[in-house]
């Protein structure tokens, strides 16, 4: 496909394709295998003893060491902060507006991003307690997308002090 208008230079569109093999690595393999079974596994840093969920690259970025033991976390958690999305994204099918929140699962010390549903966007707040809503078990794969979204758990909000240091 090429475009040429008036006396402007010719522009040619050239798709580039290269195939890559992706390795999850040992730490994320535990985490993904857990998700396949509907369980949530993080890993603990042997130095600072904080729990990473997800375990990301398998290292504690603060201490520069490999993460240690697998630790089951959640399933409930706390919203540390969030944004209300009003713009559609590539391939995104959720009804606007919706909430993307940073959630810290119970027993973990790092936030990750996920959707909040089953409440109005305007009701979502920092400190809100949430729980996961899982996809049909037959559809479970090695993916955090096994969790469709998080919904309010109905518990009282966590105090600001509980999550302030995660902001």
């Amino acid at each position, binding site marked *: 496909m090429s475009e040429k208008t008036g006396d402007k230079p010719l522009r040619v569109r050239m798709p580039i394709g290269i*195939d890559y093999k992706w390795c999850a690595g*040992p730490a994320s393999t535990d985490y993904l295998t857990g998700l396949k079974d509907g369980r949530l596994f993080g890993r603990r840093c042997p130095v600072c003893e904080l729990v990473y969920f997800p375990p990301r*690259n*398998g*290292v504690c970025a603060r*201490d520069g060491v490999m993460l240690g033991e697998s630790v089951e976390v959640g399933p409930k958690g706390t919203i540390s902060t969030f944004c209300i999305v009003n713009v559609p994204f590539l391939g995104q099918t959720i009804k606007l507006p919706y909430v993307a929140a940073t959630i810290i699962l119970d027993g973990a010390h790092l936030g990750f991003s996920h959707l909040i549903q089953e409440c109005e966007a305007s009701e979502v707040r920092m400190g809100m307690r949430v729980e996961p809503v899982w996809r049909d078990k037959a559809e479970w794969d090695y993916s955090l997308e096994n969790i469709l979204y998080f919904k309010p758990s109905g518990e009282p909000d966590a105090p600001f002090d509980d999550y302030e240091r995660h902001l």
Partner: protein
Amino acid sequence: MRDVAIVAFSEGPVTFGSTSTPVEMIVPTVHDVLKQAGIERTDVDFWCHGSCDYMTGQPFSFVSAVDALGAWPPIIESHVEMDGAWALYEAWIKIQTGEAEVALVFGNGKSSAGDMNRALSLQQDPYTVAPLWPGMTAMEGLGACAALQAGTVTERQMAEAASRARRDGAKNGNVLVSGNESADELLSRPVTAAPFRDHDIPAMADGVSAVIIATGDVAKKIAKRPAWIRAIDHRIDHQNLGWRDLARSTSAAIAASEVGVHKDKVDVAELHTTFSHHEQLLINALQLRPDATSITPSGGALVGNTLMAAGLSRFGHAARSIFSGSADRAVAHAQQGACLQQNIVAVLEGN
């Protein structure tokens, strides 16, 4: 200029098809080089990393490498989209400004994640050459043909380079391929991509290299026999393969002349030879005397091409020959780009 030396070197396992993430590959090598130097990560004033997004297929791939360093409290750190040897150059510059005494540099790559022969086409002119997807081997083949026709390299020299690399590789152990074939045996094998036989083409590999450099007194404390960087220089050539004489490496010759490679006897020269014909082109450019100089005793990139780390590894292996006392004066060389487009050369000395 301040006196700066290479004081420690670590090379991770040279493999193909690692099941670890790049970050998980970096951590043990960084820990090992610190251990060899007997220092803590907080003793490092400056960190510099060399890698390339097209190796992982992910933009900003180097960002996660910071996770491997334990960058807390925050560190002074930089990244080059170049072989780790240029990360060493940036660290050397940094030390020359007086703002750092000790620097840790590393390069990493995972060739097995993608088709590097194909990906390297994307280094070429995006409007006229890259859309043809020439591939690395074909571009290097053009260079080898030009050198053979001009007589600056012979087929026998290519086979001898490959034969020696495979034998030295066997001694090194941490390489991807090795063997004890003579040059004659290798010459009897079939030509697979004219003018190349399989052993003329590098074995692409996954790997990590890390080097620590330090200034005068600090260097003497860390290493018994530091490898002093007496001079270092890098140069580039035209990219357009039709604009330059592929039968010689002009930029390598300029860099070698700037650092004075020819001014004294060279005991060891670690050359970043990815294709076998590069060796003779580099011997010519650096004016080395193979009878007086041990050429790439590590085996080199031909037997384990850890793209983005292999050049820094040459600096590390050259330094090791100084550490061990087997050399008093060594030359380290790295290159990148098609047909030896960009070259960096350093002279290392034990005294």
